[in-house]
């Protein structure tokens, strides 16, 4: 009991240390550079406590649920040995987590307004809704595709560099042909697909797969799914822009 308590205390102080730099930076700038007292000192301290507690609870859940679930499933798939199911799983997971992503909803709506303002699509509500839905579908599809390709890569043991190099080259070339209005949104779309819950799950899954398949190295083959998932949406949202707006 005392041992468990001590362990919890160590983990809790770890969370405190994780957040401490933010507090130091903010205090330094407020007192030394801006040279004014804190505007809402009580709220800030309360918020700091919430952040430490939240991080502590999240990491406990991470070690008890997110990691083991991701790993177990990967091992089961590897035992089952059916490639199609694993690839379908990679696609579905990418698609489902992205289509429900709140940040994507916000960005798509912003994109809808920009498109309507530019006069590319009708200002009517329906055509804007269609455009926004199209954008969300395309983004989710591209992350699903990244999941599927990423899983195939792990199974086959293909080097990640080739995929990244090809992806970046395609992005650079497409940027020249894409309409100006879509480029900013496309580059932003790459960052929003990797949420705090998805990242640990996908990481555990990739490493689990690479560990269970003979001849794969967990470090070299296990990582890389997140890199693909942040690359694909950039490309596909630009494709969508070219399709809707016409080449820029």
């Amino acid at each position: 009991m005392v041992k468990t308590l001590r362990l919890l205390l160590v983990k809790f102080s770890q969370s405190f240390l994780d957040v401490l730099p933010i507090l130091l930076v903010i205090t330094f700038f407020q007192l030394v550079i801006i040279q004014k007292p804190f505007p809402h000192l009580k709220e800030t301290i309360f918020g700091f406590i919430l952040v430490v507690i939240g991080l502590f609870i999240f990491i406990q859940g991470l070690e008890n649920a997110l990691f083991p679930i991701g790993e177990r499933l990967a091992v089961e798939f590897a035992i089952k040995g059916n490639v199609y199911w694993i690839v379908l799983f990679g696609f579905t997971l990418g698609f489902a987590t992205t289509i429900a992503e709140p940040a994507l909803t916000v960005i798509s709506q912003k994109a809808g307004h920009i498109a309507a303002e530019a006069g590319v699509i009708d200002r009517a509500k329906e055509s804007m809704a269609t455009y926004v839905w199209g954008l969300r579908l395309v983004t989710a599809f591209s992350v699903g595709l990244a999941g599927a390709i990423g899983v195939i890569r792990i199974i086959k043991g293909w080097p990640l560099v080739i995929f990244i190099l090809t992806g970046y080259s395609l992005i650079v070339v497409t940027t020249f042909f894409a309409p100006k209005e879509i480029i900013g949104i496309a580059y932003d779309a790459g960052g929003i697909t990797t949420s705090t819950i998805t990242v640990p799950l996908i990481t555990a899954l990739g490493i689990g797969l690479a560990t269970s398949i003979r001849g794969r190295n967990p470090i070299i083959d296990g990582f890389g799914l997140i890199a693909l998932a942040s690359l694909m949406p950039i490309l596909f949202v630009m494709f969508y822009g070219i399709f809707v707006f016409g080449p820029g």
Partner: protein
Amino acid sequence: MDELNYLDIIYDSLRITLLDILPIIAVFAFFQWGVIRKGLPHWKKMAAGMGMVVVGLAVFIVGLEECIFPLGTSMAQQLTDPQFVMSDSPASNSLIDGKRIGAEFYIEVILFGFLIGFSTTLAEPALIAVALKAKEISTGAISTLGLRIAVALGVGTGVALGVFRIIEGSPLHYYIITGYVVLMIQTYFAPKFIVPLAYDSGGVTTSTVTVPLLVALGLGLASNVPGSSPLLDGFGLIAFASLFPMISVLAYAMIQERFFSRVPDSAMK
């Protein structure tokens, strides 16, 4: 009154986190029972763990959004305010009217960008998760803290450079394409085992903590810096923040290999 307000906000944040996790649970449940056709062992422990993930993340986000982000945003506003920027220069107001102010007057803002990028990345839950895994599978050769500091230095440098770009008003793609070239050269020379992890750490940093703060900083800057527009210059910090960690993690591994020559056992196989 105040307590009630916080309960409301926590409830709201819980709802959003749940929405985030529902499709994941649905996909996993379908494949676990529909395809693998086995019950989940220790499912009670797992369910409790999932509950902790949702509650922990919700509480974390409330603390950030209600208490730390408003302060960070108001700081960014104060630091970029032309009056503040020019306060220690003798040629005060004549320069402000519609003209750009040189980057040398913005040292405080650039430093703020670096430090806030660095410190928020250290607290990023998704990065902590990836660093824990990396340590586990490299049998300790990739240290959790080392990787996190490398990524945080990358984000800090990226944000500082992004802030500099907004002040300068130079085009984003020059920086990004240069970054890609540097990245490719590094990839060629860096130890092979670090490359996939380095690429992953670019996507990891753009999660819960860093993105909202960067958006606020970028918009604050672009609306306050004379001669720059929020629409054209305001964004792009996220692109910087996901490019530079890849460069810094590769650099970290190269330095480690050069001076300490520690390569993880599992990479030797």
